[in-house]
């Protein structure tokens, strides 16, 4: 069916409508308004519903999924005219609203008949902005006064242009709390607060940032949350039960602790370094899945989203309607990872077309489709981290900026094709980050030492939309993990055990003594991983040996999933809480002639359990080897001793050959810092507070507290138990009369007013007993001033 208005009738319409018949339609004044009002929403900028994009004349003429829709000079061949005039509401364009008036239809009709004049420089969408691929150098504007930091030079220029005031600096209290929570996810203690306030050095803000960023363990603890969300890593969840998924926890934590450069991290993730492979391998679901959720497609989607802020999800089923990515590009990227040749499926229907392993930016180089999977991944890793890949650096600096400053320069952070609110700033930061060796901490330091970061927050009465303009950092709601960590910190009520298997030992010295290296260790280890027969998290193990000769030296090689304390003849010899780092030591005078008792207290934090050891007693004649096995005894505390249960032979199980790991320790490791929320499995309260179920990549958390969350905070069991334990701890630690002031200073970074103090005491009729302290804690932790980082 084609439009069938005859020319006489057409002219009749025009006469009736008062349109001058013989004057040519004016594109800008007559056609543009119609297109803007009726078409632009679905067919411009990133959007192209039905595959049709109308930003420019050429795009419009190129047509949509069903072929061409407009033919200059030929209204009867211009299908779109039929659609806009249709009476059938199923077909009509636009599908919603009252549709075009007859006058508007006729304007378009005439415009087509006259050849569709549309000047090249005019775009229907608001902007012609396309993200650039390559890095772009930015000339820095002149600084305003002493504000010479590059970030301030760029932002100040923009503020001045808008006649907006330069944001005032935040108070030291606010800055301190913000800097602590942003870097290490903990609150400053009252002592730390005092020392910062009393410090009169002009450089104290910079010094503080450096100090915080050098707290490697706390930094890793805090940023684990961000990276776990981004890399879809968790300790429990879909897929683990069927081994369709593996963690990257140990690798990730170590990378953060060591501040591994981001380009290196990325390369290790993409080319699936041991322990990091869980990321690209994704989740293998049971049963069949739709074509967009195979592991190959998950790879394409996650690699694009995480490293480039590109959404390949639409394009995994069909050419994207919202941006430029095509089905072919999604499959080609998936093919880099795939073992087999991939056939394109459009919305689950095979198309007969095959994918070629390649990526989306051949300008930087291309993947060799004939290479092995291993090599293809290596090539992709190199291309992704190519120095000329500006999208890679812009994506990560934008993510970090959003975390520190409350909103991305591109928002949302996963839609990097959106125009940034300050392109110069984004491009500058990206170049800077690369120049600084992709050093995440250095970049954070760079942002945090700007006046911008130190500014007072921009307090908005409504959530900003697309019209957002910068007027200072935005307040951030604490993540579930920050909230729990802060509460645990204030009340000293941390959980005992972490689920994440990570190395948090403060002392990471490697014993390299010659004695350990030269010791005659046997070539073979035939020890067993042992535990008690009945499962328990805490057990004792023991072994007695009868010696006729006193050994000259004894070598001890042992480890335990997760923790052990080994004593010999009542003397504590070695402890460890890191199964990946075996204790390896050589000692004298441990053993005596006669009966010797080796005792082990062993503890499992969750998951698998086992203790393994090899003791080598050296005497004049040679060595005697004692290994863990079923000839040891085990006991659940308070119960009777039974023969030890062999969990696995050495070399098997999740631990592989842990005793031969290169990374060893001397067994005198100091205690680990308290367990943090990012390292424990998701629980009811954290889930309720927005910690995601990490089946998918999640890059932003909800910014508002909801009613259901508020109910959980008001009466939930987890929090009320924490407060009860916390109140007990506080009563032990602090003189109860000091609690209100101490608590305000620790939790909120300020001293309560006299009136507030009265209220804090009045809740328990000035008793400050156990219940009073519980209520007081609740009243402080529930305040927006506590839960929002301003």
């Amino acid at each position: 069916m084609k439009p069938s208005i005859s020319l006489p009738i057409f002219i009749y319409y025009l006469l009736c409508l008062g349109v001058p018949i013989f004057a040519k339609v004016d594109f800008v004044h007559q056609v543009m308004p119609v297109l803007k009002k009726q078409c632009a929403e679905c067919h411009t900028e990133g959007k192209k519903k039905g595959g049709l994009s109308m930003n420019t004349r050429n795009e419009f003429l190129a047509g949509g999924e069903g072929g061409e829709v407009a033919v200059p000079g030929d209204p009867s061949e211009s299908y779109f005219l039929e659609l806009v005039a249709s009476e059938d509401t199923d077909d009509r364009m636009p599908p919603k609203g009252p549709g075009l008036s007859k006058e508007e239809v006729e304007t378009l009709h005439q415009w087509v008949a006259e050849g569709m004049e549309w000047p090249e420089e005019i775009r229907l969408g608001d902007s012609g902005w396309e993200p650039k691929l390559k890095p772009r150098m930015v000339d820095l504007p002149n600084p305003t006064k002493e504000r010479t930091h590059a970030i301030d030079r760029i932002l100040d220029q923009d503020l001045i242009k808008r006649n907006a005031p330069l944001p005032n600096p935040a108070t030291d209290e606010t800055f301190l709390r913000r800097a602590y929570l942003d870097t290490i996810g903990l609150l400053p203690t009252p002592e730390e607060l005092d020392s910062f306030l009393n410090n009169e050095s002009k450089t104290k803000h910079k010094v503080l940032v450096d100090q915080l960023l050098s707290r490697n363990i706390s930094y890793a603890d805090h940023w684990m949350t961000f990276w776990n969300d981004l890399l879809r890593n968790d300790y429990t969840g879909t897929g683990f039960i069927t081994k369709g998924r593996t963690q990257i926890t140990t690798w990730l934590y170590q990378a953060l602790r060591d501040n591994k450069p981001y380009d290196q991290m990325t390369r290790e993730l993409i080319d699936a370094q041991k322990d990091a492979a869980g990321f690209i391998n994704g989740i293998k679901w049971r049963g069949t899945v739709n074509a967009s959720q195979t592991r190959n497609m998950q790879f394409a989607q996650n690699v694009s989203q995480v490293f480039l802020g590109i959404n390949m999800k639409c394009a995994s089923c069909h050419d994207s309607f919202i941006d430029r990515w095509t089905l072919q590009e999604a499959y080609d990227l998936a093919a880099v990872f795939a073992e087999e040749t991939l056939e394109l499926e459009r919305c689950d229907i095979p198309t007969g077309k095959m994918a070629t392993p390649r990526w989306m930016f051949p300008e930087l180089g291309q993947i060799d489709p004939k290479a092995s999977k291993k090599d293809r991944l290596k090539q992709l890793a190199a291309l992704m981290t190519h120095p000329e890949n500006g999208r890679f650096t812009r994506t990560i600096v934008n993510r970090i900026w959003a975390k520190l400053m409350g909103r991305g320069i591109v928002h949302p952070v996963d839609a990097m094709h959106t125009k940034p609110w300050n392109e110069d700033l984004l491009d500058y930061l990206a170049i800077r980050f690369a120049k600084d060796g992709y050093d995440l901490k250095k970049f954070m330091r760079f942002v945090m030492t700007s006046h911008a970061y130190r500014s007072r927050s921009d307090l908005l009465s409504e959530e900003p939309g697309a019209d957002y303009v910068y007027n200072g950092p935005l307040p951030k709601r604490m993540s579930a993990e920050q909230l729990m960590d802060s509460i645990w910190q204030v009340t000293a009520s941390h959980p005992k055990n972490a689920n994440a298997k990570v190395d948090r030992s403060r002392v990471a010295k490697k014993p390299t003594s010659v004695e350990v290296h030269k010791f005659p260790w046997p070539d073979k280890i035939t020890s067993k991983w042992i535990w008690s027969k009945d499962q328990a998290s805490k057990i004792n193990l023991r072994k007695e040996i009868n010696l006729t000769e006193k050994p000259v030296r004894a070598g001890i090689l042992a480890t335990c999933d997760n923790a052990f304390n080994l004593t010999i003849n009542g003397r504590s010899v070695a402890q460890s809480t890191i199964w990946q780092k075996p204790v390896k030591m050589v000692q004298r005078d441990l053993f005596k002639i006669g009966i010797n008792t080796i005792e082990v207290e062993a503890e499992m934090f969750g998951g698998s359990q086992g203790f393994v050891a090899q003791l080598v007693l050296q005497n004049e004649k040679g060595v005697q080897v004692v290994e863990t096995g079923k000839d040891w005894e085990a006991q659940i505390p308070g119960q009777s001793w039974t023969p030890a249960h062999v969990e696995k032979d050495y070399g098997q199980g999740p631990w592989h050959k842990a005793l031969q790991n290169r990374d060893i320790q001397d067994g005198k490791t100091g205690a680990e810092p308290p367990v943090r929320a990012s390292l424990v499995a998701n629980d009811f309260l954290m889930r309720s507070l927005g910690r995601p179920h990490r089946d998918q990549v999640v890059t932003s958390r909800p910014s508002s507290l909801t009613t259901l969350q508020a109910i959980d905070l008001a009466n939930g069991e987890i929090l009320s138990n924490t407060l009860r334990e916390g109140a007990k701890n506080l009563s032990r630690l602090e003189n109860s009369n000091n609690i209100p002031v101490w608590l305000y200073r620790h939790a909120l970074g300020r001293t309560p007013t006299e009136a507030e103090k009265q209220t804090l005491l009045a809740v328990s009729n000035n008793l400050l007993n156990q219940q009073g302290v519980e209520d007081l804690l609740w009243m402080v932790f529930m305040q927006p001033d506590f839960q929002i980082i301003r």
Partner: protein
Amino acid sequence: MTSFESIQRRDFLKQLGLASTTALASPGTRLWGNEQIVHPPARADSCILLWMAGGMAAPDTLDPKAYLPYEDGLEVKNILSTFPAIDTNVDGVKISQGMENIAQVMDRGTLIRSAFQPDLGAILHSRHQYHWHTGYVPPLTVAAPHIGAWMAKVLGPKNDVVPPFINIGQRLEGVGEKEELKAFTTAGFFGSEYGPMNLPYPDQAVQSVQPPKGMEPSRFSNRYKHFQKLLNQNPNRDHLSDFQGESMIRSMEAAHRLLQSDEKHAFDLTREDKDSASKYGDSRFGQGCLLARRLVEKGARFVEVTTEYVPFLNWDTHENGHTTANRMKKEIDQPVAQLIHDLEARGLLDRTLVILASEFSRDMMIEGVPGSSAPDQSRARTDKLTEMKQYGLHRHFTGGSSIMMWGGGVKKGHVYGATADERPLMAVKDPLSIEDLHATIYTIMGINPKTAYEVEKRPFYATKDGIGKCAKGILA
């Protein structure tokens, strides 16, 4: 915020008062595009989903076929139903023995006998339940909202004090496949304001709206009173206020309003008249039905009551199916019928849609549909019966299942669709897909099945890709 949404929000705010301000101010999700979605007029204001978790066998419940009693040596391929059929109060409509009470309320609703599900390679409860509850087959690239979350999001709360989406009877901890259950028991990308209030134990539901264990109500309200005082005394309150902080305070208010409201008594089953309570029996499911009724009376929007999914328990009969189905019918028959009676007596049935459904049906022989490659999961495989535990429908059948709908908006005493009378018992008349089923439910509730919200800059529809079409033959 789009201009349309701002108008819609203003209207909502007027209707709903302050509590819902928080709900509507939740960020992150906006209607897709700027187009005005025209919603159909609502035929019901509340929805109760009675969830027969684990795969309720239609031939042994709502769609009885030829019955063969247990007999040693009986060839299983001859067995279609393991219970005889009984009459209902609708002429010509029979259901399975053991559902005598439900048989007497069949005239209040429509029996759908032609629902079917896709074959996902392996028939898995978690994935099919996800599909049924969200309209989408997992895995997905975004977290899909539960059907209850859609109602909460699009319709808002019916009474602004009562959470709009309440989920009764399913534990999410300490059961098998708990992660898979959590994956769809959620508002997904809508955010938790629209998520379920989970009440796994109906008799303990009141704890969710009470002060924490060990805290007297007076202490609880005293604590909140002082908290509010502190907020007002905060010297920074005026110049350090922002939308995050204000919404936090509003949510805290809304929570305490519920916790100190009369409506909270709806959660307390001990307040139900003894005679009336006893009619629901003492099973967890029966108690859940009673709780659902009390909540709907007070203005809950969507309530799900489940027989609870636990792998290999309840309706999930991989062996001993006949005996288990007998027990399950005993568990549901009386409370379901009583729920319908009670809603009717209170004048609520006309505006409440009650749905009884399951993720798929079961069959003695066929896993999936004929020709499916899905692995057989029966634990009692045999050609001829030698013991009772082999007698029952132990395979997961996706070709035809039954759903009962009562109340608001559906035809009364009506049967929609049919399955074949001989194996395979496929839906042969008016087959109803999940998409069309959801479109029907949404239409009844006054939600356009093409409603879409924006996630990651793309549309996400109430029915998959907006393709669901309302089965008009079900509507009154």
